[in-house]
């Protein structure tokens, strides 16, 4: 058995050689950083060996009030996005399906997919203009209705909504594709049969279209739960400012600030390790739950 395997490896040696660059990349940029996470249990030394300190940094972490704030912010922002944004692409796809005029539908699709491909820096640039109290389109509209202009970006009460709505703005079109494809995939004979039986449009929606969407809906929702520890680093970094940071400071921005700006490497790594472990557990469990329920997993 062993001999056969060795022989097979030898015959396939060219294949392994072809895989060598990948092995190098993965070792350097995945394996080494994962190994480097051990820094959470060591005191970082610029000169000489790092000193093992056990759970010291985790104890500090859990007694740091700021950490509970950023953990709460992360969960609140993620939960808002998860629940409020989830139905939007589905409704968007259902609405789009009502239009059979090729040009109208195509135009809506072409424009609404675009934001998905823009960086958060560019989106922030667009939104700053959009929400500008002096010239922005949103405030022009507010003024038109006789209300005073508002600066949503520096207001603690509105900033999380800005994150949620800008995320929805970015993903509504793109995330609707998968649902739209499923709707288009429904066999026309089902509709014909239903109409022949005297079904109205409401029956069609609730008895034929929605049941087809059940599997992708459940899969996507469950898998999104798995990523709840990622509240949107790039987005927050670009939308944050001094007035609102306490409301949208998340674990990722905290790790960046404490680790790379303040240079507290071990402490930041401990915070990140905490986040990563929860993340792995969530992704793995949601993957298996989804597999069980819908036979579709995360990969």
């Amino acid at each position: 058995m062993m001999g056969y395997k060795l022989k097979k490896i030898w015959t396939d040696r060219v294949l392994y050689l072809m895989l060598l660059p990948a092995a190098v990349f993965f070792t350097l940029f995945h394996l080494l950083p994962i190994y480097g996470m051990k820094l959470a249990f060591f005191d970082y030394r610029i000169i000489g060996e790092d000193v093992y300190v056990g759970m010291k940094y985790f104890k500090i972490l859990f007694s740091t009030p700021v950490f509970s704030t950023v953990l709460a912010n992360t969960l609140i922002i993620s939960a808002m996005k998860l629940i409020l944004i989830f139905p939007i692409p589905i409704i968007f796809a259902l609405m789009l399906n009502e239009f059979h005029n090729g040009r109208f539908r195509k135009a809506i699709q072409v424009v609404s997919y675009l934001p998905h491909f823009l960086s958060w820096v560019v989106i922030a640039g667009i939104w700053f203009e959009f929400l500008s109290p002096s010239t922005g389109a949103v405030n022009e509209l507010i003024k038109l209705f006789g209300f005073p202009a508002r600066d949503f970006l520096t207001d603690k009460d509105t900033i999380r909504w800005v994150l949620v709505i800008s995320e929805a703005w970015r993903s509504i079109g793109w995330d609707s594709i998968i649902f739209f494809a499923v709707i288009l995939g429904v066999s026309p004979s089902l509709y014909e049969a239903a109409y022949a039986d005297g079904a109205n449009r409401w029956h069609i929606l609730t008895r034929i279209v929605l049941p087809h969407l059940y599997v992708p809906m459940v899969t996507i929702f469950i898998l999104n739960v798995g990523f709840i520890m990622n509240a949107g680093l790039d987005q927050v970094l670009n939308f944050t400012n001094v007035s609102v940071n306490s409301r949208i400071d998340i674990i990722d921005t905290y790790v960046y600030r404490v680790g790379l700006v303040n240079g507290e490497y071990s402490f930041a790594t401990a915070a990140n390790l905490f986040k990563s472990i929860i993340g792995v557990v969530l992704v793995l469990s949601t993957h298996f739950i989804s597999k069980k329920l819908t036979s579709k997993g995360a990969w």
Partner: protein
Amino acid sequence: MAAKGFTVSKLILGLLLTAITLTMFVPIVNLFAKALSSPDKVYLMKGYDLLPKGFSLLHFKVVLSNPIVGKALLNSLFITVTGTLLSVFFTTISAYVLTRKNLVGKAPLMVFLIIFMILEPGIVPEYMVMKDLRLLDSLWSMVLYRTINVFYLIIMMRFMEDVPDSLIEAAKIDGAGHMRVFVRIVLPLAKVPLLTIGMFYAVSRWNEFFKSSIFLSDPDKTVLQVLLRQFVVDNDSTALLSAATLLSNNEVAQLDFSALKAATIVIAMIPILVLYPIILKYYTSGVMEGGIKE
């Protein structure tokens, strides 16, 4: 199927869809219009204006003639082009190997890949590795960083599994080695998935900003997204206006900072807009097909 003809509910749906889409269309076109307005009329621009007030390329001239922007643009292009080519090549070749029949060690390798996909070590250990590799402040840090994305590798593997074995076996009988089979047979067949993951990689590399800001802190190595953040988010105009010395005093006095910002944002969007038709064709159809198969 939807009812034919005109109904009130359909009108409402149409207006709703149009309104949602206008929230994307208007701000983006407005930025173009603002950047193209003549400097002395920018202040007249409202957020919903779709046409420039007057017409001038001065804002683009100032931004593009700024050596800092020029350098950042070149750095971004270098990372995007080199990185995407390397990524596509190594992702495809690895996918080919990992889908060969009875490859010894495939199962443990896949377990590693899944671990790499879901376990994020975080920015500090990654920064340390870059430092140890002496790649900090080298453009290669961003070219080589995560050259192969596990997710795209798995997408490519799904495609490779569909390449008929008979084709590959036939070539082998003719004496072709794996490398030759890969280049001559598999690559030409993989045109659509190659373009699809190529778009994925190109977009994410062009848009990458967090890791670039950390690995490339030397101002000479800054990429466009990081510079854009300085202008747009931090409102730091010194770098942007430094090139204004090339202009006459009269012109400098006229320059409008918000229009300069708009011009920079437009420049950062242009590669995406140029690629957008290809993106829509391949990337979108990939997602659609995936959806229909489900």
